[in-house]
């Protein structure tokens, strides 16, 4: 690889080995990426917390898929099949938009294993209302 002083003005990068139009028809993990595609990089070290997916509670509504900024919700054949931990930054948007009760996605410590996390899953909460962000007298903190 060239360093930045060597590469020509107007660099062109190719994300795919072969014909791009063909490759675009496939799912991410069946494509042949070159090392220039950021798909081959990882941002897993950005995370402090990670979302964990619980298949038992999930209703496959795909809110998390459409609202994930990092394209790291894996969906295959109309089923939500987990989270791509190479590309997830742990922002928590998916947990926030999950509509089930209890939530089928929750944030856990990044070092916790999935089994541990699933064992800690909360029960259905009664009388759960959507949080109101009405603020009394100013900024309410995070």
């Amino acid at each position, binding site marked *: *690889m060239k360093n*930045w002083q060597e*590469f020509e003005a107007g*660099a062109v*990068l190719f*994300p*795919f080995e072969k014909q*791009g*139009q063909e*490759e*675009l*028809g*496939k*799912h*991410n993990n069946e494509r042949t990426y070159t090392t*220039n*595609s*950021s*798909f*081959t*990089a*990882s*941002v897993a070290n*950005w995370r402090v917390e990670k979302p964990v997916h619980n298949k038992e509670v999930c209703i*496959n*509504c*795909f*809110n998390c*898929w*459409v*609202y*994930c*900024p*990092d*394209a*790291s919700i894996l*969906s295959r*054949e*109309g089923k*939500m099949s987990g989270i*791509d931990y*190479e*590309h*997830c*930054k*742990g*922002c*928590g*948007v998916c*947990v*926030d*938009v999950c509509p089930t009760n209890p939530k089928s996605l929750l*944030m856990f410590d990044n070092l916790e294993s999935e089994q541990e996390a699933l064992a800690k899953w909360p029960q259905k909460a009664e009388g759960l209302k959507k949080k109101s*962000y*009405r603020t009394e*007298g*100013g*900024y*309410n903190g*995070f």
Partner: protein
Amino acid sequence: MVKEVKTLKSFSQSAEKFEGSHLLCPGCGHGIIVREVLNAVDGPIVLGNSTGCLEVCSAVYPHTSWDVPWIHIGFENGSTAISGVESMYKALERKGKYKGQRPKFVAFGGDGASYDIGFQFISGCLERGHDMTYICLDNENYANTGGQRSGSTPMGASTSTTPAGKVSFGKKERKKDLPLIMAAHGIPYTAQIAPNKWKDMNKKIKTALDTEGPCFINALSPCPTEWKYHSSLAIEMTDLAVDCLIFPLFEIFHGQELKITYRPRNVLPVRDYLGVQKRFAHLFKKENEHIIEALQKDVDARWEYLQRREEAKV
């Protein structure tokens, strides 16, 4: 062709064209909007991009997050770059050198590149009538360089160049009304979108991309870093923004016919929206309360104006 998305289940089967591992902050609205645009497009698409968060974070040498042809030149000319590409395709078609399907031409720009720096360039593109869509990702500041004020920053927001303190209450000027300015060019389609209404978003993107001629879309893109809220609340923020009408959702055809596409069932006070963001925290001091009232008056007046325009069909 752009897909019409009826259910998210069918939408989630579409191939991803914007890859992960870009460097946008966790919970950034840009990623949500760009994915929604690209994943709905079937067939070829060519993208232009102005300098800004999106460009800087998605194309750091030697990596690129784009699976489709994408070009970046300068801060101000994402729109003109793509208008040149569009003219090239038309010329090649005329000469018989290109026989494929004509791609969709889309330019992305941040609010700095659309409201301030690339303003006249976009205006030129719209006036020349290129077959392209310009999408402004409006996060209400220059987030990439540390949160300076832009023409899009609302009144009262504390930014790094308009800091709130003992004397100042933040930015003193009102937000520029870009969509209405762009609609005044008489272009076929102008719209405002927010990422929390994915169906409405898809409908407007489909209309814009499938319409022949220049179209302009202004998209609210919540920014956890500079609005200063927790990264998981991106969708809550846009919910609040459209429900308190500080960011109304509407579309304008041919600069004439305005249609409001979302009327909140219960309109929230602007206070609620300001209260969850730390950039407005200082407005809740006693001496700054009049700014909140002024903002509320502004928002009400604009909503009134939009409704009148819709009724009068002008």
